[in-house]
C-alpha cells in the first residue's frame, strides 16, 4: 500500500520535473513545478514528516511559487525562442544521460541496503521539531532570520525603480 502511494507520488514528481524541461512557456513550467512540490509534500507525509509536509505546501508551493508566477505575469514572459541546437550535443548527450542514469540507478538499487522505510517511520510532530529547532539549532535559526532580513532589504532595493531610490535619499 505504501509502495503504491510512493510510486503514485513519485510518478507525479518525475512527470512534473520532465514537463518543466519540456515546456516552452515559463508559466507551464511553473505549474509543473507546483505539481512537483505538492507531490513531494505527499512523499513527506508517507515518511511521517507531517510538519515538514505542511510547511512545504505553505512556504514552497504557496509562497515561493506564487512569487515566481507573479514575476512571470509582471514581466509578461513569452515563449522561449528556439535557437540552433547542436546536433552533436543531442547525439552524445541524450544517450549519455540515459546510460549514466541507468548505471547510477542500478548501483543504488543493487548495493544500498533493502532496509525498508515504513510509512510514518519518524513522526515529526511540531512540538519535537520545535524542541530541536530552538535548543540545539538555535544559532542557525537566528542566522537564518538575519539572512531573511538581508534578503528583504536586498529585494526591496533591487526591485525599486532607479529614480525612486534617488528620491528616497533626499
Amino acid at each position, binding site marked *: 500500500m505504501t509502495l503504491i502511494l510512493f510510486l503514485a507520488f513519485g510518478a507525479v514528481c518525475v512527470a512534473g520535473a520532465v514537463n*518543466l524541461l519540456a515546456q516552452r512557456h515559463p508559466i507551464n513550467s511553473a505549474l509543473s513545478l507546483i505539481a512537483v512540490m505538492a507531490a513531494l509534500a505527499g512523499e513527506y507525509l508517507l515518511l511521517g514528516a507531517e510538519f515538514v509536509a505542511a510547511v512545504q505546501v505553505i512556504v*514552497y508551493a504557496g509562497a515561493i511559487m506564487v512569487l515566481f508566477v507573479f514575476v512571470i505575469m509582471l514581466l509578461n514572459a513569452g515563449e522561449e525562442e528556439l535557437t540552433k541546437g547542436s546536433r552533436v550535443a543531442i547525439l552524445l548527450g541524450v544517450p549519455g544521460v540515459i546510460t549514466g542514469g541507468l548505471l547510477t540507478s542500478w548501483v543504488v538499487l543493487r548495493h544500498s541496503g533493502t532496509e525498508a522505510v515504513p510509512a510514518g517511520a*519518524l513522526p515529526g510532530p511540531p512540538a519535537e521539531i520545535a524542541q530541536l529547532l530552538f535548543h540545539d539549532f538555535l544559532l542557525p535559526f537566528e542566522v537564518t532570520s538575519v539572512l531573511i532580513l538581508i534578503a528583504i532589504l536586498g529585494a526591496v532595493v533591487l526591485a525599486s525603480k532607479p529614480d525612486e531610490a534617488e528620491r528616497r535619499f533626499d
Partner: protein
Amino acid sequence: MVPLSYYLLLSGILFTCGVVGFLIKRNIITIFMSIELMLNGVNLSFVAFAAHWHALAGQVFVFFVMVVAAAEAAVGLAIIIAVYRTRETLNVDQVNLLKL
C-alpha cells in the same frame, strides 16, 4: 514497504532534472525554477535519511534549506526584474555585455 534506495533514486532523478534544466534552458525564470527543483530533490533526501536513521535533525535541516531557498528566490527574482528593466529581454544568451 518502500526501501530507502527508492527515495534516494527519486531524489536523484529530481536533482538531475534540475541540473539538466539549469544547463539547457534559456529563459532566466525557468533556470531559477530548475534551481528550486534541485533544492527540493535535496530536501527529499534529507527527510528520507531522517526517517531511516530516526534522527529528527534531518527534518529540522529541511527548514533551513527552505529558508535559504526562499531568500534566494526573493533576491533572484528582484535581480531578474532589474535585468529585465535594462535589457528588455529574459533570454540569458542576450545578456552578454557588461556594458549596456
